[in-house]
């Protein structure tokens, strides 16, 4: 004989459900109760699924340390960004001797100045080396192939922007080497037919290396390109997460037992 459900009790007679985090002795466990700062923020922004999507994704078998070169390049960029922001607190883009003097002040007088400037200067080379190693890894592993072509294209733009950072940053110490390297670099760029002469006028802000060339390079170096790099790194990372990373070329596809039979049915 089927049992009939019990008639619903009125609300006041129902036993109270246990509150989250209530461990019986009157104290509340904040983690269990979901009342930590992180929970408070996440309840309003709802970012944790996205973070979980980004960080706890599946990766193919056989990946190795070469796969960390992209992250290494990104951390080199973050290091450049942080040290660059603090160098900007002392640097003066003044072509009439002020730039060189401010660099001399950072290097010789400012507390930890030589260290932070050294991080920025050597970090620049580290970033260039890492980005080339990363590109080599992607190229030799064939990781640029379908469906990851757009990731590759964005990566190439990031490479060009990184080289442009190196070019614009080289002028800023404004010593003899910076000055003549920039003259040569701008003139190389001017040898492009038709548009080259106007492009070098744009870079120099005039027909000769002038009063605003240095500030122009400084603005490109610390505002224009870093913003573009940050945005493109975001797109690059999104695509990596969305498409997954590729297996190393020496890993063969292993068919799960049963898959083939199922397909035949």
């Amino acid at each position, binding site marked *: 004989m089927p049992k009939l459900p019990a008639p619903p009790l009125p609300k006041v007679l129902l036993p109270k459900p246990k509150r989250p985090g209530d461990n019986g002795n009157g104290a509340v466990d904040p983690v269990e109760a979901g009342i930590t700062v992180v929970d408070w923020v996440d309840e309003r922004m709802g970012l944790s699924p996205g973070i979980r999507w980004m960080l706890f994704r599946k990766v193919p078998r056989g990946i190795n340390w070469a796969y960390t070169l992209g992250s290494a390049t990104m951390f080199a960029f973050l290091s450049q960004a942080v040290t660059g922001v603090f160098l900007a607190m002392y640097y003066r883009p003044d*072509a*009439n*001797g002020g730039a060189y003097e401010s660099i001399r002040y950072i290097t010789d007088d400012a507390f930890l100045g030589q260290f932070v400037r050294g991080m920025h200067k050597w970090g620049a080379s580290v970033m260039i080396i890492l980005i080339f190693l990363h590109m080599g890894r992607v190229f030799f592993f064939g990781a640029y192939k379908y469906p990851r072509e757009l990731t590759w294209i964005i990566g190439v733009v990031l490479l060009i922007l990184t080289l442009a950072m190196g070019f614009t940053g080289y002028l800023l110490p*404004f010593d003899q080497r910076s*000055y*003549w390297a920039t*003259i*040569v670099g*701008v*003139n*190389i760029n*001017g*040898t492009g*037919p*038709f548009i*080259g*002469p*106007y492009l*070098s*006028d*744009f870079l*120099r*802000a*005039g*027909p*000769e*290396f*002038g*009063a*605003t060339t240095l500030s122009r390079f400084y603005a490109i170096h610390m505002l224009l390109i870093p913003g573009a790099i940050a945005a493109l790194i975001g797109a690059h990372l999104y695509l990596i997460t969305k498409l997954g990373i590729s297996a190393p070329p020496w890993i063969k596809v292993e068919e799960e037992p049963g898959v083939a039979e199922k397909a035949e049915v």
Partner: protein
Amino acid sequence: MPGAFEGETVTRRRLMGLTVHTAGGITAAAFTLPALGFALGPLFSREPFDWQPIGQPSDFPNNTYTTKVITIVQGIGSAGKTIAYVRARNPSIDTEHEDQYNHFIALSSRCMHLGCPVRFVAAAQRFICPCHGGVYDFRGMVSGGPPVRPLDRFYTRVRNGLVEIGPRYSVNSELQRFSPRDPGEPLDGIGQYLYPKRFSTSVLPKD
């Protein structure tokens, strides 16, 4: 999407959408275009110049060069200075047409390969560039290395008994004058069309 009544081609929703997009586009253009123009402005503003006196005519013999430091950009100290190598015109070697601007020959020290500073080596009667080995003869014509055209020159004139130096100009291998180009841009043959004149360089006033 059907309209509110028969025959309506643009619905109210679509009209509102178009209006919002147009307003957004105008707003974005209102700050992007002036900023872009501001950044590109220097391409179209002509650089002023002045004639700088550099000495008496007797200071400049015609068989060797005298080094003069001149200012090409005001207000940035030594970064705005450059070196000109100056000598009197020597009719036995200077075969180009003589006019009021070349009684004195003033060569720019900018190497025409990529813009490093050349120096005059009196013993060799040559200009030599330290960067990539460009060599120029006594008249500034290319005699070896990577430079693509002879050394640039400056207009010179004599006023009130003083030699004055004016704007720079470029020359091709026949010493024809062109408005100043950047180093690395050849002016022979097709080069003069591949590397057109710029709007920013100083021009000589017609006087």
